[in-house]
């Protein structure tokens, strides 16, 4: 059992050293500067920081390869003992450096695995280095490794390896960072989406078609963004009043939610939104009427009664002065209805609940 434990340390230590070096190299290549990989070298004088960072990475790479090379039939005698001894010394040094770093630069991460090791040094990090020191010391004097035959011996070694990996993972704050990266999706507040795409999404939205008869300008007079929404303001005219039509487009690459409001340009009064669509253009095919009226504002026919007859479509005309021109609130349109589906056909009759996006609607998303 003890022999098996000592044997599995060699591939494990080699993997850790090579992984650490590659992670540091990856970070350096991404940032195109050795300075980002400094980590514990922050303890050294300025002129020594860069050489020490390079030397650390080179030592990890060399020892990782040497552990693998000396693990087999070359692993007899002084060469293997020297490599494993130096590995143990490296980890002892790491323990000391981490303790120093924790005391003198508590804000600096250990940098052991590049970007993933940016959290300040904790006792877990120090315990991991101590465990690896013991593992390295235990490999001194181990006979050359041979692949055990299938059966109990192989299963025992695999189980020991898995258990130790689990222990090291439990001691590694980097695991949390790695899991975050694996399941990462960029929050909409941080998403960079060109204004042109927003404009194109707006032009193909139902809200745009609904307000097209009011909008008088081809280009927005103002465009700005806040959090997950981009706002576009168009000049407009309705019933002789100069108005501004404000669209808010959710910053999502496909079928974003679009909201709209009409504001009197002179008084700033918020006018409730339009509730009628403009008549279809002459060059567009007329959308067929739905087979049955649905939606909250049309009474469903009682069972057994004859279906209600829909009034013929009326051309858009300016509203009478005493008639309500607008619905009493801003409307939202969800563009998620599939092409050809019933809800797509019944564009006005699809009261799909709007996605809850802001802090007031979805407080659970905003955890301070």
């Amino acid at each position, binding site marked *: 059992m003890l022999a098996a434990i000592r044997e599995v340390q060699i591939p494990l230590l080699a993997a850790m050293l090579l992984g650490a070096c590659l992670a540091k190299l990856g970070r350096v290549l991404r*940032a*195109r*500067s050795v*300075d*980002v990989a*400094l980590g514990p070298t*922050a303890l050294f004088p*300025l002129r020594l*920081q860069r050489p020490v960072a390079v030397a650390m990475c080179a030592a990890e790479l060399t020892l990782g390869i040497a552990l693998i090379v000396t693990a087999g039939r070359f692993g007899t005698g002084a060469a293997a003992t020297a490599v494993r001894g130096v590995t143990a010394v490296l980890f002892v040094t790491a323990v000391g450096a981490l303790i120093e770093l924790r005391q003198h630069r508590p*804000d600096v991460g250990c940098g052991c695995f590049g*970007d993933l090791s*940016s959290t300040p040094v904790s006792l877990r990090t120090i315990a991991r280095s101590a465990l690896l020191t013991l593992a390295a010391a235990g490999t001194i004097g181990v006979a050359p490794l041979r692949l055990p035959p299938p059966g109990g011996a192989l299963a025992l070694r695999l189980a020991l390896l898995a258990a130790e990996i689990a222990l090291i993972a439990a001691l590694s704050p980097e695991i949390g*960072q790695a899991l*975050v*990266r694996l*399941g*990462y*999706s960029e*929050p*909409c*507040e*941080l998403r*960079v*989406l*060109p*204004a042109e795409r927003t404009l194109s999404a707006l032009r193909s939205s139902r809200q745009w078609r609904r307000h097209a008869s009011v909008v008088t300008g081809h280009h927005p*007079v*103002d*465009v*700005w*963004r*806040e*959090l997950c929404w*981009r*706002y576009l*303001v168009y000049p407009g005219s309705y019933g002789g009043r100069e108005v*501004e039509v*404000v*669209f*808010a487009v959710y910053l999502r690459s496909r079928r974003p939610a679009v*909201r*709209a*409001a009409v*504001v009197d340009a002179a008084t*700033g009064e*918020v006018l409730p939104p339009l509730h009628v669509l403009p008549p279809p253009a002459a060059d567009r095919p007329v959308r067929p009427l739905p087979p049955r009226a649905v939606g909250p504002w049309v009474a469903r026919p009682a069972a057994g009664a004859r279906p209600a007859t829909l009034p013929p479509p009326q051309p858009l005309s300016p509203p009478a002065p005493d008639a309500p021109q607008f619905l009493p*609130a*801003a409307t939202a349109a969800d563009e998620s209805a599939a092409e050809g589906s019933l809800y797509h056909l019944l564009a006005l009759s699809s009261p799909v609940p709007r996605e809850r996006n*802001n*802090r*007031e*609607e979805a407080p659970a*998303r*905003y*955890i*301070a």
Partner: protein
Amino acid sequence: MRDLLDGLAGSERRSAAAMAAASTAIAESARIARRCRLKAAVFGPQAGLDQGPSVCDDANAWPLESVPRAVTGEVLDVSPHILVIGKGEVEERFALTADANAWRGAKTDPAAVKVGDHAVVRRHDSGREVADRIWANIGRVTGTIVRRDGDTLVVDRGDGSGNQVLVIAERASGRIQVRFPRLEPGYLIDIIGVRHDDFLEGLVPATSQPAYRADHVPGPPLVNGHVPGSFSGAAIWHEQGDEPDGLIGTAYPAVDPQNAATTRAGRQQAASGCVSLPYLSIGSLLRVRNDCTGLSRVLPVIGSAASARLFCDRSVICGPSPRGRIADLTLASFVELGGELDEGNFNVTIEIEG
């Protein structure tokens, strides 16, 4: 004579151009001022934003509702008991009490302030005509070192406003070298000092120099889900440059680069910086709280804090803040919120309004 005529014609052209620019600026300001209300119109009461218009009112009305604590202008007269500050055609007189103190390259007596100095005065809590703190000719250079010639550095502020010249004063050289060991092109610098016509005389290091170069700023930690609604970090101040005296507002490190193209700040391509901040625009409202004094105000975003996002340092005025500079305040806003200009920063929490 021809030169004179050319000069007059040129003067008229410049005058016309200046008027056109002023008129454009006014139109743009009016457009930005409407954004808060237009946004509230879209979301309305049903989205829980019924307080939106009042927030818009608060932000617009703040300078008018109360007497501003910060007064900026030229020193017209100074005596052991009275300080007169001129701002355009307006003069304001302040009584100097024994408690008042001043900064003019170092902490000094208010009587050491000279006529002609550009001063920032903070009123005393007890009265509107009493000066509490006076900063004379204070200036700051923050940005990336472009060139060095002995003790003279050329620094790019990163906002497209051109380079600044910083001359490190001999008496402060040692202190600055300790905090800024790499006075080389490509590295960052942040120094407070005395403003002269063409240069800043560097006297006080405002932070410690980051180890990385300006083009290798570490990325922010990843955020899953939605970003939080409030952020803590460091607030700094910037010189007013072309800004009018007493301007209230803050530059913000994450101004949307897509629609900031018409502003000077927008020409600088936004980078992520070392804090994950949500994108906002000029005119967005932030509630800014000084965690050290407890004072808070709603401030509009007035620009992109290009150099602030290069620094991943902390404020330690009242305990260490989280990393990153998240607000770059105007002089007046910094003083109104209780900040000490010669200290350069304070711990801050910002919340996005509306």
